């Protein structure tokens, strides 16, 4: 799994470095630089071909669109992961709180109903069995 990403990362780094060098050549162009520029342009195409080849290995990888929004805003996409984890934990705690409250309510209701309607509750317990202690 990690090899796929390493391969892509390596190709992307090479491509970016080539683009950077292209930018340097172009920023102060000299007539003697034309051969180097032509080589860099073809190297760029080779780099794109290499990245294109990596696509086949990464078809099963899904990236959430929200992560792209972070990148578009110039923000660290790890913040998206962080916020997802925090949201998941908060929701998890919220649901657990609800479940705990409802469990307590259930046991309290059964005990109170047992006091008022003992016969009916005995039959109910015969059907459902005794509830586990909350």
């Amino acid at each position, binding site marked *: 799994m990690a090899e796929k990403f390493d391969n892509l990362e390596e190709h992307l780094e090479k491509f970016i470095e080539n683009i950077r060098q292209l930018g*340097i050549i172009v920023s102060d162009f000299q007539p003697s630089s034309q051969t180097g520029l032509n080589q860099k342009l073809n190297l760029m195409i080779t780099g794109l071909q290499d990245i294109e080849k990596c696509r086949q290995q990464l078809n099963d990888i899904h990236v959430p669109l929200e992560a792209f929004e972070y990148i*578009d805003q110039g923000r660290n996409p790890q*913040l998206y*992961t*962080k916020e997802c984890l925090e949201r998941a934990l908060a929701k998890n705690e919220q649901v*657990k709180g609800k479940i705990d409250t409802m469990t307590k*309510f259930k046991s309290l209701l059964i005990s109170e109903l047992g006091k008022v309607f003992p016969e009916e509750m005995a039959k109910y317990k015969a*059907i459902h069995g005794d509830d586990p202690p909350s």
Partner: protein
Amino acid sequence: MTEIFSSLYGQTEAQGPSAMGFGPGKPLPPPVPQNPVHMAVPIPHQLVDEGPPLRKPAAMNEPFYLVRELPMETELTGNTNLITHYNLEHAYNKFCGKKVKEKLSNFLPELPGMIDTQGLQDGSSLRSLIEKPPVCNNSFSPLTGTMLTGFRLHTGPLPEQYRLMHIQPPKKKSKHKHRHHRPQDPLPPETPSDSDHKKKKKKKDDDPDRKKKKKDKKKKKNRHSPDHPGTTSSQPSSSSLR
């Protein structure tokens, strides 16, 4: 709690569903208000008119009806810590344990150029790439000699506005500064005691050297001017100034 108890609505055992002639699938008649105290809450029609599969056939002859099966206890719910369940503690501690730096350049420090700016400003956003993919061929073919003639450039430097490749975010400088500023930063309450301790140690370490120097000076002066002992008393003050 989805169970509905008929007894809650004032129905005694004799007035249960079996006694009243309720059969499976038959619609329930409206509750008879025999005991107004117990019948204060009528049975809502939505709760009564459940589909046949939800009814428990065994419970039809019992005093309660519409008793459903309890939910499966093995089902994964929010009752369990899902981060632990999916082995995400490491990721949680990594991202939520410490402060994650805000800027994109902190995530991709090796990337050249200004990458912390908004992508929409210069049209380099990933969203625009998804929404409007570039129209191009499916394959990349190398440029031939004739094609490369289109890339013959004029000599000389580029205008200022196109020299974005050389501009780097000032991350290295800030890091460098930060390192230098660390000792000058206000220290937590524990550290001053440490620094004091170090100072004391330094003083202690320096003391023998100073004493030695003083002794040497005294010896030299005593050798050179044995007739003027009073000058030696003034020397420590000068040495202390140094």
